[in-house]
């Protein structure tokens, strides 16, 4: 028994060492090349990053406006809600390449196509979170507001949205991170951004280009998530006092 275990252990170790050494050998070359590439083309990379960021920010603003509005509307019309959420769900599971391909005949090649496709993609998280965030508020709070004579409009802006905001913001963060990734693919239809780097890297077989693009996308995604998270936390003064009552 002991022998058997020992053998298995040795085998494992050998395999592990092997993989490690292969990876190290390969990596060293790639890393060096990538660093070299990045330092040579930093202007281009920065420009593409800004383009990428612009695409994401613009799309995010449009998508959040539309999604929050839809989310609020369906929170009042329960019968609509399941249908609308279903449609958003379908939109999200369409493969990104297919979605972009659908957009080209409608909007041609370029930035607009990318924006439209990205907006459609990112509807679900925000619509769903707005809807559930409002729906799952303590009904007693809404009823108290109503019973005191607040109009539906005031209840929405003074009670429902502020209370559902953390949930809505979680949806926005999901959408943003998702969008940053998909925006890279949107370069395929000429929307620009870091995707260009990745795609030309692939077509030329130039690995450092691909990796530089991927790193750029990751940096944007992490920074965005962080900013949105802490922005929301700082923005909500009462952050720690929401529960209770």
């Amino acid at each position, binding site marked *: 028994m002991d022998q058997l275990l020992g053998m298995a252990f040795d085998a494992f170790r050998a395999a592990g060492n092997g993989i490690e050494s292969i990876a190290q050998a390969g990596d060293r070359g790639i890393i060096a090349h990538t660093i070299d590439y990045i330092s040579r083309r930093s202007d281009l990379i920065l420009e593409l990053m800004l383009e990428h960021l612009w695409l994401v920010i613009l799309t995010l603003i449009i998508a959040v406006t539309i999604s929050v509005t839809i989310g609020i509307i369906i929170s009042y019309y329960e019968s609509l809600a399941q249908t609308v959420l279903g449609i958003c769900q379908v939109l999200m599971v369409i493969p990104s390449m297919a979605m972009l391909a659908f957009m080209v005949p409608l909007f041609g090649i370029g930035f607009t196509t990318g924006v439209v496709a990205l907006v459609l993609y990112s509807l679900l998280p925000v619509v769903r979170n707005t809807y559930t965030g409002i729906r799952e508020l*303590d009904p*007693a*709070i809404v*009823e*108290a*507001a*109503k*019973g*005191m*004579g*607040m*109009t539906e409009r*005031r209840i929405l802006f003074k*009670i429902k949205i*502020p*209370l559902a905001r953390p949930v809505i913001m979680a949806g926005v963060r999901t959408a943003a991170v998702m969008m940053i990734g998909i925006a890279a693919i949107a370069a395929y239809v000429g929307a620009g951004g870091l995707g260009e780097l990745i795609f030309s890297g692939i077509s030329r077989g130039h690995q450092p280009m691909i990796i530089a693009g991927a790193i750029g996308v990751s940096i944007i995604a992490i920074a965005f998530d962080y900013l949105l998270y802490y922005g929301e936390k700082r923005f909500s003064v*009462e952050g720690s*006092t*929401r*529960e*209770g*009552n």
Partner: protein
Amino acid sequence: MIKLEGLTKVFKGHNIPAVKDLNLEVNEGDVCVLVGPSGCGKTTTMKMINRLYEPTGGKIYIRGEDALQMDPIKLRLDIGYVIQEIGLFPHMTIYENIATVPNEKQWPKDQVKEKVDNVMSLVGLDPEIFKNRYPSALSGGQRQRVGVARAMVSDPPIMLMDEPFGAVDPITRARLQNEFLRIQERVDKTIVFVTHDIDEAIKMSDTIAVMREGELVQHATPSDLLSAPADEFVSNLVGRNRSIKRLHLIRVSEILEEVDRAPALKEDTKEEEVKKRLDESDIRTVIVVDRDNKLKGVIGVNDLKRKTGEVAGDYFQEVSDTVTDDATLNDALSVMLEIGEGYVAVVNEDEKYQGTITLGDLLNVVREDS
């Protein structure tokens, strides 16, 4: 002030009405307490009055006006509402919570501030301490006070209070009840008050409406309810100790007028007079007061035997407790039991002697209505 006619509510998908053909009238300045077991339709009735629920049938009149024809927002702004679940807004400070209705009415800022401060003091919350706190930083009892303050801040003529003292321990509850009665004496609002605690109902109400399975069983003054329950359901609800509960309802001053007891003795009364008065007394005790009619003490038969001086002022015994004339008979009974005597001296707030009440007097009151 509030009149409900044939008020009925059938919830969608329910066969049995939650409230059925309810007729009820609440006079201006009265506290009407809705009481009944859980699920009997108290909250539903209340929410129809401020139109959170639309009635399936029947009419609601407020000051003679058809409430169902009124703009619900206007209607609600003039009806203070304390929701059963308290429902404070967790993202707003206590100040902002209480200022809700004044802000809806767009009062000037100064006026809002003044009113909020006033009403917070009124319900016993120090504005300086609590104003900027969030609801989560308050105890259950404090939250209920905020709920009540929020409902009454704009001085609405009508208040709907759904178990406003539900979520607190009995001692805090009694304190809140007393504060409520004290406030109500001053503001004199028309109030519909829900509870399922019959003792609370008796204590707080001008009239009690007993509900059962959506129907009104009896609407009467607490005293009539205790002396003449409409049926077995009501008499079970008010319980076995009806007579003792009745003692909650009567103030000492009310029966003091009826009992005709000889006046107290002055301190300089001589022995013969004391002896004569002791013989006449039904409690074999006489009360001694000073020149200003302030209570000094009592003299019993034994005190006279062992007397240590010539006049009454030399040998009276001090009394360990008294009641004031605005206490209830129940308070008087408690004091008698505590001091272990069959009587208690009644004084007014300046400690002037008003008279004496005996266990026999209480028995007479209880006997009268059974």
